[in-house]
């Protein structure tokens, strides 16, 4: 499969990239690792006029402590994350999850920014032009009707990233640079939950950096997928729990991937968990509650009811892990 033709830019500064992007935002794309973008270009679901390479901009890939905060440049690769001493010591969960995204080559090529900003996925969208030729183009690919729910104007494609749920659970923020300057927002707000335009970035904006406050409590990430290394999740879960000094739960965050058009935080389940002690009855109730709060769509070969059940099971497993006196 050949790539379609495009104009190729190698900006030397982030400002240059922002200007290039803003000048033709609808027909421009950003290139980081390329492991998501190039596949979609080969499938012809994306055919940009202009590809802007971010790797030619110096000083966008770093992992550093700034006072108490951990700051990671958007172009840091997943391998940079998993092998970073700083991250292994302060946030071992991030180091671990970076190795769960995909196999070794994908960790060497793939960037944190790219993983956070990855395109949403759907069995009707992420297919070759040949395969998609059997039906009219779907709404996300520029056509009229979504093939998942046969209605116009709404895309149900699924967000399947691994780093986002964990970073949201860690209360991460992102710094975004655009034609009107910089802004910092919570990572959760980066996601519009709109399948067709999954990121809330404004025209010309580029994700520059991820900022993580000092660690507290304990975070787990469970990824349920068919093959143990190379796939997107069927459903995955980041669970963050802080005990309040007694044996009760102080703060809890429960964030799922692959069950909605953005990362899904099950707030009702969190509220049920907070101020509880982690007994078996609570675990049962919380898992059932979380399964009720998600609305997975039929965007993959796994049925929504299967995803719902697995979401509840994963949450139960994760919570049981916190029952053990010294969870690993």
């Amino acid at each position, binding site marked *: *499969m*050949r*790539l*379609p*033709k*495009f*104009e*190729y830019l190698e900006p030397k500064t982030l400002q240059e990239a922002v200007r290039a992007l803003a000048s033709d935002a609808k027909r421009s794309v950003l*290139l980081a690792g*390329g*492991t998501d973008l*190039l*596949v979609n270009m*080969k499938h012809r679901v994306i055919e940009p006029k202009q590809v802007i*390479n971010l*790797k030619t901009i110096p000083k966008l890939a770093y992992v550093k402590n700034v006072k108490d905060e951990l700051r990671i440049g958007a172009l840091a690769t997943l*391998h940079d994350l998993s092998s970073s001493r700083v991250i292994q010591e302060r946030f071992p969960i991030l180091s671990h999850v970076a*190795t769960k995204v*995909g*196999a*070794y*080559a*994908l960790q*060497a*090529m793939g960037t944190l920014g790219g993983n956070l900003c990855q395109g949403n996925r759907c069995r009707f969208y992420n297919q070759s032009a040949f395969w998609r030729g059997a039906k009219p183009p779907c709404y996300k690919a520029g056509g009229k009707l979504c093939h998942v729910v046969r209605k116009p104007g709404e895309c149900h494609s699924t967000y399947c990233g691994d780093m986002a749920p964990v970073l949201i659970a860690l209360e991460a923020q992102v710094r975004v640079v655009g034609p009107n300057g910089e802004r910092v927002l919570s990572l959760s707000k980066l996601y519009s939950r709109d399948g067709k335009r999954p990121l809330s970035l404004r025209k010309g904006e580029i994700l520059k950096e991820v900022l993580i406050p000092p660690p507290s409590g304990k975070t787990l990430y469970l990824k349920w997928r068919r*093959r*143990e*290394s*190379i796939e997107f999740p069927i459903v995955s879960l980041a669970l963050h729990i802080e005990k309040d000094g007694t044996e009760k739960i102080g703060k809890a965050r429960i964030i799922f991937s692959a069950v909605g058009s953005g990362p899904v935080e099950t707030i009702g389940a969190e509220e049920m968990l907070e101020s509880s002690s982690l007994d078996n009855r609570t675990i049962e109730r919380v898992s059932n509650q979380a399964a009720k709060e998600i609305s997975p769509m039929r965007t993959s070969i796994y049925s929504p009811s299967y995803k719902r059940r697995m979401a509840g099971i994963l949450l139960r497993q994760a919570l049981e892990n916190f029952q053990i006196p010294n969870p690993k």
Partner: protein
Amino acid sequence: MEVRGKEVVVKRIITLNVNGEEFEFLTEVHRTLLEVLREDLGLTGTKRGCDLGTCGACTVLIEGKPYLSCLTLAADVQGKKIVTIEGLAQDGEPHPLQKAFVQKGAIQCGFCTPGMILMAKAFLDENPNPSEEEVKQAISGNICRCTGYTKIVEAILSLTHK
């Protein structure tokens, strides 16, 4: 830039460092490293499997790290040290990994082998003493339809200190 009718064709002169040699040539910017290696440089050891980054047959080493050449733009890796399977043997002597694969019977049709060996090399360079489980994880992105992986893992482990 050249304009043919309504089509704008964008070509560049790029310089690639492959297996220690510099190659300079004119190419269209939308070509992947895999295409350039196989079609322009005649280095057909690197294989086109799925072309989508899921099988690992196109694995090459760039600055010692494994990369999927089917998802890499040739123009993007100028100035970087690229090693293909053809670059492993030194002075006609096969690399220890290549010898181990042959000795252990880790090659059947041979299609996954270049990618598998390069992935193993990148991994062992970073991790000279892995466990069996770590080896399996390291090659988990390289699909083999023939061998069932057992001999491949044995071949790689035979080069560790265990």
